């Protein structure tokens, strides 16, 4: 609001000069509200650019006058009223937790479930058959070859097979 007052002063001067120059044009653009400093309750920015209450009522104005004197003379209610003029919510109020996370988690599960349904439909109606390497007979031959090659005989797959008795180790 300080900025608006400054602009009005400039505008008055600009009107008198620019009327001569441009022949009757207003000269100053209208100040948009979103371009002026705004009030935000943020933990990261504890002192906002402007006070919360811009248009003081008569009691609030007289309280502001009293604030210019000794603060020890202010009662507790007056101090709180001054605080509420400057700020909308206290830190405790603005940083309080909420139950929003339950909605978020529920939404997440719902979306994941829905995606599962889409994937299932895809598996049934979009993809073609799997390669022949997935057949049970092929898989048996593959396993036999793995054991024949003695793959990972120390701690891995081959170590679980008993080569003497041709069976899995107990």
């Amino acid at each position, binding site marked *: 609001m300080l900025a608006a007052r400054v602009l009005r002063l400039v505008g008055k001067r600009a009107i008198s000069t620019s009327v001569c120059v441009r022949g009757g044009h207003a000269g100053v653009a209208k100040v948009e509200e979103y371009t002026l400093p705004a009030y935000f309750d943020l933990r990261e920015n504890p002192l906002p650019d402007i006070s919360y209450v811009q248009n003081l009522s008569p009691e609030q104005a007289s309280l502001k006058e009293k604030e210019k004197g000794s603060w020890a003379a202010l009662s507790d209610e007056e101090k709180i009223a001054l605080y509420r003029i400057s700020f909308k919510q206290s830190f405790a109020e603005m940083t309080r937790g909420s139950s929003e996370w339950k909605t978020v988690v529920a939404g997440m599960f719902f979306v994941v479930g829905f995606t599962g349904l889409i994937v299932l439909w895809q598996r049934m109606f979009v993809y073609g058959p799997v390669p022949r390497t997935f057949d049970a007979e092929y898989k048996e031959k593959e396993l036999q070859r793995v054991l024949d*090659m003695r793959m990972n005989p120390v701690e891995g797959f081959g170590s679980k097979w008993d080569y003497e008795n041709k069976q899995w180790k107990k």
Partner: protein
Amino acid sequence: MSLPKPVMRGLLGKRLRFHAPIAVVLSIVAAVAFKYGVTEPRKQAYADFYKQYDAVKEFNAMREAGVFESVRPTGE
């Protein structure tokens, strides 16, 4: 309305003095646990395996199974 003034300085230092020794101790514990839980048994398993390992016997068994391309099973 006269609360004691809260601590304003040295907060990071205090946190580090508390957590850094714990971090060091836990790291050492993790390393020792991994050494004696994983690497020592693994070294022992390899040692035991190769104590009784006959390379020629294994080679012939693999050859008979037909997995080599340079050597065919005896008989073909």
